[in-house]
Protein backbone atom coordinates (compact mmCIF):
# COMPACT_ATOMS: atom_id res chain seq x y z
CA UNK A 1 0.00 0.00 0.00
CA UNK A 2 1.28 3.45 -0.88
CA UNK A 3 1.03 6.80 0.93
CA UNK A 4 -1.17 8.32 -1.74
CA UNK A 5 -4.15 10.34 -0.50
CA UNK A 6 -7.51 8.64 -0.03
CA UNK A 7 -10.40 9.66 -2.25
CA UNK A 8 -13.98 8.44 -2.53
CA UNK A 9 -14.43 6.13 -5.51
CA UNK A 10 -17.76 7.87 -6.09
CA UNK A 11 -17.94 11.43 -4.73
CA UNK A 12 -20.67 12.35 -2.29
CA UNK A 13 -22.08 8.91 -1.55
CA UNK A 14 -20.45 8.44 1.86
CA UNK A 15 -18.63 10.43 4.52
CA UNK A 16 -14.88 9.95 4.91
CA UNK A 17 -14.93 9.83 8.74
CA UNK A 18 -13.57 7.04 10.96
CA UNK A 19 -17.09 5.77 11.46
CA UNK A 20 -18.40 6.48 7.99
CA UNK A 21 -22.01 6.76 6.87
CA UNK A 22 -23.59 6.43 3.47
CA UNK A 23 -25.00 9.78 2.38
CA UNK A 24 -28.58 9.52 1.26
CA UNK A 25 -31.47 11.88 0.91
CA UNK A 26 -34.90 11.91 2.50
CA UNK A 27 -38.08 13.36 1.05
CA UNK A 28 -39.25 16.18 3.35
CA UNK A 29 -42.89 15.37 2.58
CA UNK A 30 -43.22 11.57 2.83
CA UNK A 31 -39.94 10.62 4.61
CA UNK A 32 -38.84 8.12 1.93
CA UNK A 33 -35.07 7.60 1.92
CA UNK A 34 -32.99 7.43 -1.23
CA UNK A 35 -29.63 5.84 -1.83
CA UNK A 36 -27.84 6.65 -4.09
CA UNK A 37 -28.85 10.21 -3.12
CA UNK A 38 -31.73 11.65 -5.12
CA UNK A 39 -32.65 15.34 -5.01
CA UNK A 40 -34.90 15.90 -7.98
CA UNK A 41 -38.12 13.91 -7.71
CA UNK A 42 -39.68 11.68 -5.07
CA UNK A 43 -40.18 8.13 -6.35
CA UNK A 44 -43.04 7.35 -3.96
CA UNK A 45 -46.01 7.30 -6.37
CA UNK A 46 -48.19 8.97 -3.73
CA UNK A 47 -45.81 11.92 -3.39
CA UNK A 48 -44.87 14.63 -5.91
CA UNK A 49 -42.32 16.37 -3.73
CA UNK A 50 -39.15 17.92 -5.11
CA UNK A 51 -37.84 18.85 -1.68
CA UNK A 52 -35.19 16.68 0.00
CA UNK A 53 -32.84 16.82 2.94
CA UNK A 54 -29.41 15.18 2.93
CA UNK A 55 -29.13 12.48 5.59
CA UNK A 56 -26.52 10.09 6.89
CA UNK A 57 -27.93 6.57 6.64
CA UNK A 58 -27.64 4.03 9.45
CA UNK A 59 -24.11 2.66 9.43
CA UNK A 60 -25.17 -0.71 10.84
CA UNK A 61 -27.72 -3.27 9.77
CA UNK A 62 -28.35 -6.99 9.34
CA UNK A 63 -27.31 -9.20 6.44
CA UNK A 64 -30.31 -9.85 4.15
CA UNK A 65 -28.27 -12.18 1.96
CA UNK A 66 -24.69 -12.68 0.86
CA UNK A 67 -22.47 -14.20 -1.82
CA UNK A 68 -19.03 -13.69 -3.34
CA UNK A 69 -17.32 -12.91 -6.63
CA UNK A 70 -15.03 -15.77 -7.64
CA UNK A 71 -14.44 -14.38 -11.14
CA UNK A 72 -13.06 -10.99 -12.07
CA UNK A 73 -15.88 -8.63 -13.15
CA UNK A 74 -15.45 -6.67 -16.39
CA UNK A 75 -14.60 -2.93 -16.54
CA UNK A 76 -15.36 -0.46 -15.08
CA UNK A 77 -14.31 -2.74 -12.19
CA UNK A 78 -10.58 -2.35 -11.57
CA UNK A 79 -9.16 -5.63 -10.36
CA UNK A 80 -6.07 -6.31 -8.29
CA UNK A 81 -3.46 -8.42 -10.06
CA UNK A 82 -3.86 -11.26 -9.35
CA UNK A 83 -7.62 -10.98 -8.84
CA UNK A 84 -8.68 -11.50 -5.23
CA UNK A 85 -12.18 -12.93 -4.74
CA UNK A 86 -14.33 -10.95 -2.30
CA UNK A 87 -17.61 -11.44 -0.47
CA UNK A 88 -20.68 -9.29 -1.12
CA UNK A 89 -23.61 -8.63 1.20
CA UNK A 90 -27.05 -7.07 0.92
CA UNK A 91 -27.72 -5.35 4.24
CA UNK A 92 -31.14 -4.48 5.64
CA UNK A 93 -31.19 -1.02 7.25
CA UNK A 94 -33.90 -0.89 9.88
CA UNK A 95 -34.76 2.79 10.03
CA UNK A 96 -34.56 3.27 6.26
CA UNK A 97 -36.44 0.02 5.47
CA UNK A 98 -34.14 -0.73 2.58
CA UNK A 99 -31.41 -3.15 1.52
CA UNK A 100 -28.03 -1.78 0.37
CA UNK A 101 -25.44 -3.92 -1.45
CA UNK A 102 -21.71 -3.66 -0.98
CA UNK A 103 -18.55 -5.67 -0.83
CA UNK A 104 -17.62 -7.24 2.49
CA UNK A 105 -14.22 -6.24 3.88
CA UNK A 106 -11.14 -8.18 2.76
CA UNK A 107 -10.35 -11.28 4.78
CA UNK A 108 -13.99 -12.19 5.44
CA UNK A 109 -15.33 -15.08 3.34
CA UNK A 110 -18.85 -16.41 2.80
CA UNK A 111 -18.08 -19.11 5.37
CA UNK A 112 -17.89 -16.34 7.98
CA UNK A 113 -21.29 -14.87 7.07
CA UNK A 114 -24.91 -15.78 7.73
CA UNK A 115 -28.29 -14.24 7.04
CA UNK A 116 -29.29 -11.93 9.91
CA UNK A 117 -25.72 -11.25 11.03
CA UNK A 118 -25.12 -7.68 12.31
CA UNK A 119 -22.65 -5.66 10.23
CA UNK A 120 -21.25 -2.14 10.14
CA UNK A 121 -20.14 0.15 7.35
CA UNK A 122 -16.43 0.86 6.90
CA UNK A 123 -14.29 2.31 4.13
CA UNK A 124 -11.77 0.18 2.27
CA UNK A 125 -9.76 0.38 -0.92
CA UNK A 126 -11.64 -0.33 -4.12
CA UNK A 127 -8.63 0.32 -6.39
CA UNK A 128 -5.61 2.58 -6.75
CA UNK A 129 -4.94 5.19 -9.44
CA UNK A 130 -1.73 7.11 -10.30
CA UNK A 131 -2.87 9.93 -8.02
CA UNK A 132 -4.82 8.43 -5.14
CA UNK A 133 -6.39 5.43 -3.46
CA UNK A 134 -10.06 5.09 -4.28
CA UNK A 135 -12.03 3.92 -1.26
CA UNK A 136 -15.64 2.82 -1.04
CA UNK A 137 -18.09 1.48 1.52
CA UNK A 138 -17.85 -2.14 2.58
CA UNK A 139 -19.65 -4.18 5.20
CA UNK A 140 -17.81 -5.65 8.21
CA UNK A 141 -19.33 -8.20 10.59
CA UNK A 142 -19.91 -6.94 14.13
CA UNK A 143 -19.09 -9.12 17.14
CA UNK A 144 -21.88 -11.56 18.01
CA UNK A 145 -24.34 -10.12 20.50
CA UNK A 146 -23.91 -6.51 19.41
CA UNK A 147 -27.09 -4.65 18.62
CA UNK A 148 -27.05 -2.51 15.48
CA UNK A 149 -30.33 -0.87 16.41
CA UNK A 150 -28.61 0.97 19.25
CA UNK A 151 -25.15 0.96 17.76
CA UNK A 152 -26.04 3.28 14.89
Amino acid at each position, binding site marked *: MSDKPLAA*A*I*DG*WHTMADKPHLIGTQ*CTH*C*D*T*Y*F*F*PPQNQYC*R*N*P*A*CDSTDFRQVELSRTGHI*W*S*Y*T*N*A*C*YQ*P*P*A*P*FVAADPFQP*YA*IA*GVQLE*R*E*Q*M*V*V*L*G*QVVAGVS*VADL*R*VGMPVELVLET*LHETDDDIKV*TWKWRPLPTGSNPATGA
Partner: protein
Amino acid sequence: MANEIAIIGAGMHPWGKWGHNFVQYGVAAAREALADAGVPWQDIRFVSGGATVRCGYPGYVAGATFAQALGWQGAEVNTSYAACASGSQALAAARNKILAGECEVALVVGADTTPKGFLAPAGGYRPEDPDWVRFYLGITNPTYFALYARRRMDIYGDTLEDFAAVKVKNSRVGAKNPRARYRKCFTAEDVAASAMVADPLRLMDICATSDGGAALIVCSLEYARKIGKADAPRVAGISTTTPTFASGVVEMPDIATDSAAANGVEAISYRSRIPLKAYEEAGIGPEDVSLAEVYDLSTALELDWIEDLQLVPRGEAAAWLRRGDTALGGRIPVNVSGGLACFGEAVPAQALAQVCELTWQLRGEAGDRQVKGAKVGITANQGLFGHGSSVIVKK
Protein backbone atom coordinates in the same frame (compact mmCIF):
# COMPACT_ATOMS: atom_id res chain seq x y z
CA MET B 1 -62.70 -14.25 -25.77
CA ALA B 2 -62.59 -10.65 -26.95
CA ASN B 3 -58.96 -10.05 -26.09
CA GLU B 4 -57.46 -13.19 -27.61
CA ILE B 5 -55.30 -13.58 -30.70
CA ALA B 6 -54.17 -16.80 -32.40
CA ILE B 7 -50.63 -18.09 -32.80
CA ILE B 8 -50.55 -19.69 -36.24
CA GLY B 9 -46.81 -19.94 -36.72
CA ALA B 10 -43.69 -20.45 -34.62
CA GLY B 11 -40.04 -20.65 -35.61
CA MET B 12 -36.59 -20.56 -34.07
CA HIS B 13 -33.00 -20.46 -35.24
CA PRO B 14 -31.12 -22.94 -33.02
CA TRP B 15 -29.38 -21.37 -30.01
CA GLY B 16 -25.58 -21.46 -29.94
CA LYS B 17 -22.50 -19.29 -30.06
CA TRP B 18 -22.49 -19.01 -33.82
CA GLY B 19 -20.96 -15.53 -34.06
CA HIS B 20 -23.05 -14.44 -37.07
CA ASN B 21 -25.01 -11.24 -37.57
CA PHE B 22 -28.18 -11.34 -35.44
CA VAL B 23 -30.30 -10.46 -38.50
CA GLN B 24 -29.53 -13.85 -39.99
CA TYR B 25 -31.04 -15.65 -36.95
CA GLY B 26 -34.14 -13.48 -36.98
CA VAL B 27 -34.72 -14.03 -40.69
CA ALA B 28 -34.32 -17.81 -40.30
CA ALA B 29 -36.79 -17.85 -37.40
CA ALA B 30 -39.26 -15.60 -39.25
CA ARG B 31 -39.15 -17.76 -42.39
CA GLU B 32 -39.73 -20.92 -40.35
CA ALA B 33 -42.68 -19.26 -38.60
CA LEU B 34 -44.14 -18.03 -41.91
CA ALA B 35 -43.82 -21.51 -43.45
CA ASP B 36 -45.37 -23.02 -40.31
CA ALA B 37 -48.31 -20.62 -40.60
CA GLY B 38 -48.62 -21.06 -44.35
CA VAL B 39 -48.84 -17.27 -44.68
CA PRO B 40 -46.95 -15.45 -47.44
CA TRP B 41 -44.53 -12.77 -46.17
CA GLN B 42 -46.27 -10.18 -48.34
CA ASP B 43 -49.48 -10.68 -46.31
CA ILE B 44 -47.86 -9.60 -43.01
CA ARG B 45 -49.02 -6.07 -42.20
CA PHE B 46 -47.10 -5.48 -38.97
CA VAL B 47 -43.56 -6.48 -37.98
CA SER B 48 -42.89 -6.23 -34.26
CA GLY B 49 -39.23 -6.69 -33.33
CA GLY B 50 -37.47 -7.17 -30.02
CA ALA B 51 -34.48 -4.81 -29.90
CA THR B 52 -30.92 -5.83 -29.17
CA VAL B 53 -28.60 -3.20 -27.72
CA ARG B 54 -25.38 -5.05 -28.53
CA CYS B 55 -25.48 -5.12 -32.31
CA GLY B 56 -25.40 -1.43 -33.22
CA TYR B 57 -28.10 0.66 -34.86
CA PRO B 58 -29.78 -2.24 -36.72
CA GLY B 59 -30.44 -3.75 -33.30
CA TYR B 60 -32.11 -0.56 -32.00
CA VAL B 61 -34.53 -0.62 -34.92
CA ALA B 62 -34.91 -4.40 -35.09
CA GLY B 63 -38.47 -4.32 -36.46
CA ALA B 64 -37.36 -2.34 -39.50
CA THR B 65 -34.13 -4.33 -39.81
CA PHE B 66 -36.02 -7.61 -40.10
CA ALA B 67 -38.64 -6.08 -42.42
CA GLN B 68 -35.87 -4.90 -44.76
CA ALA B 69 -34.05 -8.24 -44.60
CA LEU B 70 -37.22 -10.13 -45.49
CA GLY B 71 -37.89 -7.61 -48.27
CA TRP B 72 -39.65 -4.27 -47.86
CA GLN B 73 -43.33 -4.80 -48.59
CA GLY B 74 -44.88 -1.76 -46.90
CA ALA B 75 -45.82 -3.33 -43.55
CA GLU B 76 -45.80 -1.12 -40.46
CA VAL B 77 -43.04 -1.81 -37.96
CA ASN B 78 -42.43 -1.53 -34.25
CA THR B 79 -39.36 -2.14 -32.09
CA SER B 80 -39.65 -2.92 -28.39
CA TYR B 81 -36.87 -2.76 -25.85
CA ALA B 82 -37.74 -4.22 -22.46
CA ALA B 83 -34.60 -6.17 -21.54
CA CYS B 84 -35.52 -9.85 -21.02
CA ALA B 85 -39.19 -9.00 -21.62
CA SER B 86 -38.54 -7.42 -25.05
CA GLY B 87 -40.13 -10.32 -26.91
CA SER B 88 -43.30 -10.17 -24.81
CA GLN B 89 -43.55 -6.44 -25.23
CA ALA B 90 -43.20 -6.87 -29.00
CA LEU B 91 -45.93 -9.54 -28.83
CA ALA B 92 -48.15 -7.18 -26.82
CA ALA B 93 -47.69 -4.48 -29.47
CA ALA B 94 -48.80 -6.93 -32.17
CA ARG B 95 -51.78 -8.01 -30.08
CA ASN B 96 -52.86 -4.39 -29.62
CA LYS B 97 -52.60 -3.74 -33.34
CA ILE B 98 -54.67 -6.84 -34.13
CA LEU B 99 -57.31 -6.26 -31.43
CA ALA B 100 -57.64 -2.64 -32.56
CA GLY B 101 -58.55 -3.98 -35.99
CA GLU B 102 -55.62 -2.28 -37.72
CA CYS B 103 -53.98 -5.47 -38.85
CA GLU B 104 -55.05 -9.09 -39.32
CA VAL B 105 -51.74 -10.89 -39.20
CA ALA B 106 -48.37 -9.87 -37.73
CA LEU B 107 -44.81 -11.15 -37.39
CA VAL B 108 -43.16 -10.91 -33.97
CA VAL B 109 -39.42 -11.58 -34.01
CA GLY B 110 -36.34 -11.20 -31.83
CA ALA B 111 -32.71 -12.24 -32.27
CA ASP B 112 -29.35 -11.57 -30.68
CA THR B 113 -25.63 -12.08 -31.08
CA THR B 114 -23.98 -12.00 -27.67
CA PRO B 115 -20.40 -11.29 -26.62
CA LYS B 116 -18.36 -13.74 -24.54
CA GLY B 117 -18.42 -13.69 -20.75
CA PHE B 118 -20.17 -11.17 -18.51
CA LEU B 119 -22.55 -8.70 -20.11
CA ALA B 120 -20.85 -5.36 -19.39
CA PRO B 121 -22.07 -1.74 -19.36
CA ALA B 122 -20.95 1.18 -21.54
CA GLY B 123 -17.60 2.74 -20.53
CA GLY B 124 -16.56 6.09 -19.05
CA TYR B 125 -17.17 7.46 -15.53
CA ARG B 126 -20.95 7.49 -15.18
CA PRO B 127 -22.19 7.19 -11.57
CA GLU B 128 -25.66 8.32 -12.71
CA ASP B 129 -26.05 4.93 -14.45
CA PRO B 130 -26.86 2.19 -11.91
CA ASP B 131 -25.58 -0.45 -14.33
CA TRP B 132 -22.19 1.29 -14.42
CA VAL B 133 -22.15 1.74 -10.62
CA ARG B 134 -22.70 -1.89 -9.76
CA PHE B 135 -19.99 -3.14 -12.13
CA TYR B 136 -17.57 -0.51 -10.77
CA LEU B 137 -18.27 -1.83 -7.26
CA GLY B 138 -17.78 -5.44 -8.41
CA ILE B 139 -21.40 -6.59 -8.58
CA THR B 140 -22.28 -8.70 -11.64
CA ASN B 141 -25.49 -10.47 -12.68
CA PRO B 142 -24.61 -13.72 -10.85
CA THR B 143 -24.31 -11.68 -7.63
CA TYR B 144 -28.06 -11.07 -7.65
CA PHE B 145 -28.94 -14.67 -8.57
CA ALA B 146 -26.72 -15.86 -5.73
CA LEU B 147 -28.27 -13.48 -3.18
CA TYR B 148 -31.72 -14.88 -4.05
CA ALA B 149 -30.42 -18.47 -3.91
CA ARG B 150 -28.89 -17.91 -0.47
CA ARG B 151 -32.21 -16.50 0.75
CA ARG B 152 -33.94 -19.72 -0.36
CA MET B 153 -31.38 -21.79 1.54
CA ASP B 154 -31.81 -19.68 4.64
CA ILE B 155 -35.60 -19.34 4.62
CA TYR B 156 -36.82 -22.61 3.07
CA GLY B 157 -33.90 -24.96 3.67
CA ASP B 158 -33.15 -25.49 -0.03
CA THR B 159 -29.80 -27.18 -0.62
CA LEU B 160 -27.04 -27.15 -3.22
CA GLU B 161 -28.29 -30.60 -4.25
CA ASP B 162 -31.72 -29.10 -4.98
CA PHE B 163 -30.18 -26.46 -7.23
CA ALA B 164 -28.12 -29.10 -9.04
CA ALA B 165 -31.28 -31.20 -9.46
CA VAL B 166 -32.88 -28.36 -11.44
CA LYS B 167 -29.96 -28.46 -13.89
CA VAL B 168 -30.13 -32.26 -14.12
CA LYS B 169 -33.90 -32.16 -14.73
CA ASN B 170 -33.68 -29.48 -17.42
CA SER B 171 -30.72 -31.09 -19.18
CA ARG B 172 -32.66 -34.36 -19.54
CA VAL B 173 -35.32 -32.66 -21.67
CA GLY B 174 -32.97 -30.13 -23.27
CA ALA B 175 -30.91 -33.03 -24.60
CA LYS B 176 -33.96 -33.96 -26.69
CA ASN B 177 -34.50 -30.45 -28.05
CA PRO B 178 -32.81 -29.90 -31.43
CA ARG B 179 -33.01 -26.11 -30.95
CA ALA B 180 -31.14 -26.13 -27.61
CA ARG B 181 -27.46 -25.14 -27.39
CA TYR B 182 -26.43 -27.59 -24.64
CA ARG B 183 -27.72 -31.06 -25.41
CA LYS B 184 -25.96 -33.20 -22.84
CA CYS B 185 -27.53 -34.96 -19.85
CA PHE B 186 -25.62 -33.48 -16.94
CA THR B 187 -25.39 -35.17 -13.53
CA ALA B 188 -25.36 -33.71 -10.03
CA GLU B 189 -21.66 -34.62 -9.95
CA ASP B 190 -21.04 -32.53 -13.07
CA VAL B 191 -22.68 -29.53 -11.40
CA ALA B 192 -20.76 -30.04 -8.15
CA ALA B 193 -17.48 -30.30 -10.09
CA SER B 194 -18.03 -27.02 -11.97
CA ALA B 195 -16.32 -23.87 -10.75
CA MET B 196 -17.92 -21.71 -8.06
CA VAL B 197 -18.98 -18.38 -9.60
CA ALA B 198 -21.04 -16.67 -6.90
CA ASP B 199 -21.49 -18.79 -3.79
CA PRO B 200 -23.73 -20.87 -3.61
CA LEU B 201 -24.02 -20.92 -7.41
CA ARG B 202 -21.58 -22.77 -9.63
CA LEU B 203 -20.92 -22.30 -13.32
CA MET B 204 -23.51 -24.94 -14.21
CA ASP B 205 -26.14 -23.28 -12.01
CA ILE B 206 -25.96 -20.10 -14.08
CA CYS B 207 -27.18 -19.63 -17.63
CA ALA B 208 -24.81 -18.63 -20.41
CA THR B 209 -25.38 -15.94 -23.04
CA SER B 210 -26.22 -17.29 -26.47
CA ASP B 211 -26.96 -16.36 -30.05
CA GLY B 212 -30.43 -17.24 -31.28
CA GLY B 213 -33.63 -16.06 -32.89
CA ALA B 214 -37.33 -16.74 -32.37
CA ALA B 215 -40.46 -15.68 -34.22
CA LEU B 216 -44.23 -15.97 -34.05
CA ILE B 217 -46.98 -15.34 -36.58
CA VAL B 218 -50.03 -14.03 -34.74
CA CYS B 219 -53.42 -13.05 -36.10
CA SER B 220 -57.03 -12.25 -35.30
CA LEU B 221 -59.28 -15.21 -34.46
CA GLU B 222 -61.28 -14.40 -37.59
CA TYR B 223 -58.20 -14.59 -39.80
CA ALA B 224 -57.23 -17.91 -38.18
CA ARG B 225 -60.69 -19.29 -38.97
CA LYS B 226 -60.49 -17.95 -42.52
CA ILE B 227 -57.28 -19.89 -43.24
CA GLY B 228 -58.52 -23.06 -41.55
CA LYS B 229 -56.57 -22.66 -38.29
CA ALA B 230 -59.47 -22.04 -35.90
CA ASP B 231 -57.90 -24.55 -33.47
CA ALA B 232 -54.58 -22.72 -33.23
CA PRO B 233 -53.32 -21.96 -29.70
CA ARG B 234 -54.30 -18.51 -28.47
CA VAL B 235 -52.56 -15.82 -26.52
CA ALA B 236 -54.97 -15.42 -23.60
CA GLY B 237 -53.01 -13.02 -21.40
CA ILE B 238 -49.90 -10.86 -21.49
CA SER B 239 -48.47 -9.03 -18.51
CA THR B 240 -45.60 -6.57 -18.85
CA THR B 241 -46.28 -4.74 -15.58
CA THR B 242 -43.61 -2.71 -13.80
CA PRO B 243 -42.76 -3.03 -10.08
CA THR B 244 -44.87 -1.48 -7.32
CA PHE B 245 -43.28 0.95 -4.87
CA ALA B 246 -41.62 0.06 -2.55
CA SER B 247 -39.85 -2.63 -4.57
CA GLY B 248 -38.47 -4.65 -1.68
CA VAL B 249 -36.02 -7.07 -3.34
CA VAL B 250 -32.75 -5.69 -4.64
CA GLU B 251 -32.99 -6.04 -8.42
CA MET B 252 -30.47 -5.77 -11.23
CA PRO B 253 -28.86 -3.31 -11.78
CA ASP B 254 -29.62 -1.42 -8.56
CA ILE B 255 -27.35 -1.37 -5.51
CA ALA B 256 -30.26 -0.69 -3.15
CA THR B 257 -33.96 -1.40 -2.88
CA ASP B 258 -36.62 1.26 -2.60
CA SER B 259 -37.08 2.51 0.94
CA ALA B 260 -40.34 1.42 2.55
CA ALA B 261 -39.98 3.95 5.37
CA ALA B 262 -42.84 6.25 4.30
CA ASN B 263 -46.22 6.01 6.02
CA GLY B 264 -48.52 3.47 4.40
CA VAL B 265 -45.76 2.03 2.19
CA GLU B 266 -44.70 -1.59 2.36
CA ALA B 267 -41.96 -3.60 0.68
CA ILE B 268 -43.38 -5.56 -2.26
CA SER B 269 -41.79 -8.35 -4.32
CA TYR B 270 -41.87 -7.50 -8.01
CA ARG B 271 -41.44 -11.02 -9.36
CA SER B 272 -44.54 -12.41 -7.69
CA ARG B 273 -46.72 -9.63 -9.14
CA ILE B 274 -45.70 -10.07 -12.78
CA PRO B 275 -48.09 -12.97 -13.55
CA LEU B 276 -51.15 -11.43 -11.87
CA LYS B 277 -52.30 -9.40 -14.88
CA ALA B 278 -51.79 -12.38 -17.21
CA TYR B 279 -53.96 -14.60 -15.02
CA GLU B 280 -56.59 -11.87 -14.79
CA GLU B 281 -56.71 -11.28 -18.54
CA ALA B 282 -56.89 -14.99 -19.28
CA GLY B 283 -59.60 -15.49 -16.68
CA ILE B 284 -57.83 -18.57 -15.33
CA GLY B 285 -55.84 -19.46 -12.25
CA PRO B 286 -52.64 -21.33 -11.49
CA GLU B 287 -54.67 -24.53 -11.01
CA ASP B 288 -55.52 -24.49 -14.74
CA VAL B 289 -51.88 -24.43 -15.89
CA SER B 290 -50.53 -27.56 -17.64
CA LEU B 291 -46.91 -26.43 -18.01
CA ALA B 292 -44.65 -23.44 -17.45
CA GLU B 293 -41.60 -21.98 -19.18
CA VAL B 294 -39.79 -19.82 -16.63
CA TYR B 295 -36.62 -17.73 -16.73
CA ASP B 296 -34.03 -19.92 -15.05
CA LEU B 297 -31.17 -17.43 -15.15
CA SER B 298 -30.02 -19.64 -12.30
CA THR B 299 -31.16 -23.06 -11.15
CA ALA B 300 -32.37 -21.59 -7.86
CA LEU B 301 -34.36 -18.92 -9.68
CA GLU B 302 -36.48 -21.61 -11.37
CA LEU B 303 -37.68 -22.56 -7.88
CA ASP B 304 -38.55 -18.93 -7.09
CA TRP B 305 -40.53 -18.61 -10.32
CA ILE B 306 -42.60 -21.74 -9.68
CA GLU B 307 -43.74 -20.14 -6.44
CA ASP B 308 -44.14 -16.66 -7.94
CA LEU B 309 -46.49 -18.15 -10.55
CA GLN B 310 -48.40 -19.69 -7.61
CA LEU B 311 -48.01 -23.14 -9.15
CA VAL B 312 -46.89 -24.46 -5.74
CA PRO B 313 -47.15 -22.93 -2.25
CA ARG B 314 -44.38 -20.50 -1.23
CA GLY B 315 -41.29 -22.36 -0.07
CA GLU B 316 -42.32 -25.75 -1.43
CA ALA B 317 -40.78 -25.70 -4.93
CA ALA B 318 -37.77 -27.75 -3.87
CA ALA B 319 -40.02 -30.42 -2.34
CA TRP B 320 -41.99 -30.63 -5.61
CA LEU B 321 -38.70 -30.86 -7.52
CA ARG B 322 -37.45 -33.69 -5.28
CA ARG B 323 -40.65 -35.67 -5.91
CA GLY B 324 -40.31 -35.18 -9.67
CA ASP B 325 -43.49 -33.10 -9.78
CA THR B 326 -41.87 -30.36 -11.91
CA ALA B 327 -40.28 -32.79 -14.38
CA LEU B 328 -41.74 -34.02 -17.67
CA GLY B 329 -44.49 -36.45 -16.62
CA GLY B 330 -44.91 -34.73 -13.24
CA ARG B 331 -47.85 -32.71 -11.89
CA ILE B 332 -46.66 -29.38 -13.27
CA PRO B 333 -43.79 -29.76 -15.75
CA VAL B 334 -41.49 -26.72 -15.78
CA ASN B 335 -39.04 -25.84 -18.56
CA VAL B 336 -39.63 -28.92 -20.73
CA SER B 337 -37.82 -27.00 -23.51
CA GLY B 338 -34.70 -27.39 -21.38
CA GLY B 339 -34.98 -23.78 -20.21
CA LEU B 340 -32.17 -21.27 -20.14
CA ALA B 341 -30.03 -24.01 -18.61
CA CYS B 342 -29.90 -25.69 -22.03
CA PHE B 343 -30.39 -22.64 -24.26
CA GLY B 344 -28.43 -19.84 -22.65
CA GLU B 345 -29.95 -16.40 -22.94
CA ALA B 346 -30.47 -14.56 -26.23
CA VAL B 347 -32.22 -11.60 -24.64
CA PRO B 348 -34.64 -10.23 -27.28
CA ALA B 349 -35.49 -13.72 -28.51
CA GLN B 350 -35.86 -15.51 -25.19
CA ALA B 351 -39.40 -14.50 -24.18
CA LEU B 352 -40.55 -15.45 -27.71
CA ALA B 353 -38.72 -18.78 -27.52
CA GLN B 354 -40.75 -19.50 -24.38
CA VAL B 355 -43.98 -18.86 -26.30
CA CYS B 356 -42.74 -20.98 -29.24
CA GLU B 357 -42.31 -23.93 -26.87
CA LEU B 358 -45.81 -23.46 -25.44
CA THR B 359 -47.21 -23.29 -28.97
CA TRP B 360 -45.65 -26.62 -29.97
CA GLN B 361 -46.66 -28.20 -26.67
CA LEU B 362 -50.30 -27.11 -26.98
CA ARG B 363 -50.40 -28.39 -30.55
CA GLY B 364 -49.05 -31.73 -29.34
CA GLU B 365 -45.99 -31.38 -31.61
CA ALA B 366 -43.23 -31.47 -28.98
CA GLY B 367 -42.21 -35.07 -29.70
CA ASP B 368 -40.43 -36.79 -26.83
CA ARG B 369 -40.66 -33.58 -24.78
CA GLN B 370 -44.46 -33.56 -25.07
CA VAL B 371 -46.51 -32.80 -21.94
CA LYS B 372 -49.52 -35.09 -22.28
CA GLY B 373 -52.84 -33.29 -22.62
CA ALA B 374 -51.30 -29.82 -22.35
CA LYS B 375 -54.06 -27.21 -22.51
CA VAL B 376 -52.69 -24.08 -20.83
CA GLY B 377 -49.10 -22.86 -20.65
CA ILE B 378 -47.58 -19.87 -18.91
CA THR B 379 -44.25 -18.09 -19.33
CA ALA B 380 -42.41 -15.83 -16.92
CA ASN B 381 -39.29 -13.73 -17.13
CA GLN B 382 -37.68 -10.69 -15.58
CA GLY B 383 -34.88 -8.43 -16.71
CA LEU B 384 -33.16 -5.19 -15.79
CA PHE B 385 -34.76 -1.85 -14.98
CA GLY B 386 -38.23 -3.00 -13.93
CA HIS B 387 -38.95 -5.12 -16.98
CA GLY B 388 -40.69 -8.46 -16.68
CA SER B 389 -43.38 -10.39 -18.44
CA SER B 390 -45.71 -13.35 -18.29
CA VAL B 391 -47.68 -14.76 -21.22
CA ILE B 392 -50.51 -17.28 -21.04
CA VAL B 393 -51.19 -19.46 -24.08
CA LYS B 394 -54.18 -21.78 -24.21
CA LYS B 395 -55.80 -24.20 -26.59
